[in-house]
């Protein structure tokens, strides 16, 4: 072994009883999460093993529920994922740090003064009540973000709240929440922002980004941006206007529907129409109970959740599209399927896959690529009988007296 005994990673692996075989396997899964070929695993392994000192990190909590912190705590431990995270020196992380109060605040000041750090931001940016809806150490949350982001090498916005305000931005947005990119645009701060939506963030994605930034790009932000494939999602914040969001393509480039293990039932027209039913026991498609998989672009079905234990659809719930933008307003009522949004009527008789692309705001080029992908997989054809489904929906709504 080329790296025997000569670096921190090797020691950590040995101490924790992780074999080289496990390690390479994990590097392969990182490659997959980044949208690279698994044959890249040895290169990732080499980059990991050659890593220098810890990267100073400030993990800032905005208007958060702490769910993204909780999520990162769900990575395998003791395992390679935690070792990767050990490459971060989390100088400030309210939920886990020992210090409190004044001593904690000093940690932020010192890290900013030294420079060369990254910011991981969790939670909404709280601008309501003149920025007083979030106060930490008597300071407005918005000021803390601006100060930290200005000198940072990069900002990683984790979870939907940090990306676009999340549920807190939900109409009528009483606390005037917004996302990190929207706020930094407003402040004229040009530090690159990597956006990792879903509620909460999937911890594997943070690990993938950390690997990419620290190791594959050797902490060089320009190289990181260059070496990573991105998709750009655009939306309009009601207060701050048009915002473009950078997201890693390997994670957010494909729809949930395309990778869904229940997809075959969709093609066959086999649907769950009531929770906890016989059809659910047979693993039928959840489209008719409102699944937002067709319009939601994440690799959840591949990476799964909680150490690859399961994910929403496997447990029997329709996807509620928490990886989409302004997901609470755009996707509710959650139990009503896409057809109810009348997208089909507005755009002609389109299939769920392409409707998803439009709703997701992906560029036209991506739509074409997506369509080609579907064709290559032999999935387009005439598609499922959408008109019948719409009829069914209308009947169901009339019977139950519900409305949108």
């Amino acid at each position: 072994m080329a790296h025997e005994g000569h670096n921190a990673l090797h020691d950590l692996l040995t101490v924790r009883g992780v074999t080289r075989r496990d390690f390479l396997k994990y590097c392969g899964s990182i490659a997959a999460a980044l949208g690279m070929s698994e044959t890249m695993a040895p290169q990732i392994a080499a980059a990991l093993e050659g890593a220098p000192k810890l990267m100073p990190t400030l993990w800032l909590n905005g208007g958060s529920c702490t769910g993204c912190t909780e999520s990162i705590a769900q990575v395998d431990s003791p395992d390679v994922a935690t070792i990767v995270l050990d490459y971060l020196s989390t100088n400030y992380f309210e939920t886990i740090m020992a210090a409190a109060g004044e001593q904690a605040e000093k940690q932020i000041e010192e890290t900013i003064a030294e420079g060369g750090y990254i910011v991981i931001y969790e939670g909404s940016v709280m601008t309501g009540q003149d920025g007083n809806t979030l106060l930490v150490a008597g300071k407005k949350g918005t000021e803390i973000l601006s100060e930290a982001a200005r000198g940072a090498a990069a900002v990683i916005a984790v979870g939907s709240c940090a990306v676009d305000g999340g549920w807190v931005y939900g109409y009528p947005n009483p606390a005037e929440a917004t996302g990190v990119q929207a706020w930094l645009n407003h402040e004229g701060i040009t530090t690159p922002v990597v956006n990792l939506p879903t509620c909460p963030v999937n911890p594997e994605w943070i690990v993938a980004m950390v690997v990419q930034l620290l190791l594959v790009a050797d902490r060089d932000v320009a190289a990181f941006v260059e070496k990573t494939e991105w998709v750009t999602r655009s939306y309009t914040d009601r207060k701050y206007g048009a915002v473009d969001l950078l997201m890693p393509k390997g994670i957010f480039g494909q729809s949930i529907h395309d990778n869904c293990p229940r997809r075959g039932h969709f093609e066959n027209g086999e649907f769950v129409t009531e929770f906890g039913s016989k059809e659910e026991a047979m693993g039928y498609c959840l489209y008719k109970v409102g699944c937002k998989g067709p319009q939601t672009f994440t690799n959840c079905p591949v990476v799964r959740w909680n150490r690859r234990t399961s994910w929403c659809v496997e447990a029997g719930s329709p996807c509620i599209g928490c990886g989409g933008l302004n997901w609470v307003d755009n996707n509710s009522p959650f139990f009503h399927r896409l057809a109810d949004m009348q997208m089909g009527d507005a755009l002609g008789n389109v299939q769920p896959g392409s409707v998803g692309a439009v709703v997701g705001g992906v560029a036209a080029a991506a739509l074409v690529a997506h369509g080609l992908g579907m064709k290559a997989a032999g999935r387009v054809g005439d598609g499922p009988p959408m008109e019948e489904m719409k009829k069914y929906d209308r009947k169901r709504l009339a019977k139950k007296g519900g409305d949108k």
Partner: protein
Amino acid sequence: MARAVIDPVTRIEGHLRVECEVTDGVVKDAWVSGTLYRGMETVMLDRQPEDAFYVTQRICGVCPISHSHASSMSTEAALGIEIPNNARLIRNLLEAAQFLHSHILWFYTLAALDFVSPINALSANIADTYALAQAAGTRVADFGAIAKRLTAFAENGQLSFLGGHYWDHPGYVLPPELDLIATAHYLEALEMQAVANEVVAVIGGKFPHPMTSVPGGTAFVPTEQKLDDILFRFTRLKDFIDTALIPDTLAIAPFILETTTYGGGCGNFLSWGVFDSADRDPYNRFLPRGFVTGGLTAEEVGPDDVTEYVEHSWYDSASGLNPAKGETSVNFDEYNVDNKYSYGKAARCKEKPAEVGPLARMVAAYVYEAGGKTLVEDTSVRTPKALIDLTLEALGVAGKPEVLVSLLGRIAARNLEAAYVVDLALMWVNELVGAIKGGDSSYFKARESFDGQGAGLWEAPRGSVGHWIDIKNNKIQGYQVVAPTTWDIAPRDAAGVAGPMEQALIGAPVFDVERPLEMLRIAHSFDP
């Protein structure tokens, strides 16, 4: 006289400030401030009731399951739905996983660093550490390897999340060997809390924010494989609780016995009750409903007994409202402890401040058991009174349950509750297997009504949670949440009476106002 301030209080969920007036080393007055407003109640208006199940759990990333259950229960109460028995058992299992995750994470990751110094652990003698672990009946780890890793961490000069703290504070009194054991278990606890959440993922798809306890029952239909996955994980958790969490608590307690003399607080304990029994009576829940205000009796209590005051909170809505008629109109003013100083409303039960959480639930359960009530028929389950009595005996205070009303009592109650809950969980898995084998395949009941008002009163790991919903024509007209921490961090009410955490702080010693470790311990003991 001096002011001691902790802002932010770290190692919690959310944003909290604690300010105390300290004279002659004792807290004379205290103000606790919630410093974040997001507005969930307003965001929920005009949406459909099922949407509330998915969205309102996002109030808290540590206890989303409890919020989701309270939300679904409020809708079920409003629309007159009784969920199927299998759904009851599955929700109990999901909630139990949440409790175990939260309690394990709280003790080791959030609270332990107030007592345990990983820095002091560097000077532990490894052989003595094994001897101590054996004597204490707590599980051993590769202590040498962990010490080596800690040393590398310290020598690197980057202390990361351990940096900047006052590890030289004289309040850190444990021998280095015990510090090393607790640090080893700190690392293992990270694994175990994740195992608890794998149960959540099996049932609910993911943690945080699981997806299946929809109004009407559950969307999760277990398979034999999934039930086995759940059983295996609860068995692992029981092993960890019995061989680390409980013995560690008992090993650390003798060194910090002075913490039984302060931190008790208001002495009023509220439990809405949690873990439904087959008859769905909240007073027959496995942790039953009750309000204890002194002595060994529990009063009946319900949704109408709650009022919220905003005289000292940054709202301009009316004060003294019951949540069924609640309003939330935010209006920030300056931080001023003599006037308004928190986004928290002052929740009151029967007009009294009420402590909620494991201590409150265990006190209520103890009172019921002492009065002759049987909480659970299965005799293999260790009940709250048995666990408390054993602990009191181990600490040399047998027959004095009043000792529990203290800082140490609040810590111990949480860990003892974990032991009770894991036993219950194992029992429910078997009950569910039996029901399914017996042919019960009902998990969900569709609603037939689109109008109604209801309250879902339940317990999160950190305390009583209530959701109030008002549905008209399938739209939410009113939504109010009284979260656990709302009770505990409540500011003063209209009469100027301090909230539970404020009262727990008053009278506590503070050795050094610049490094107020005791205040931090008390704040953490509520798991805010």
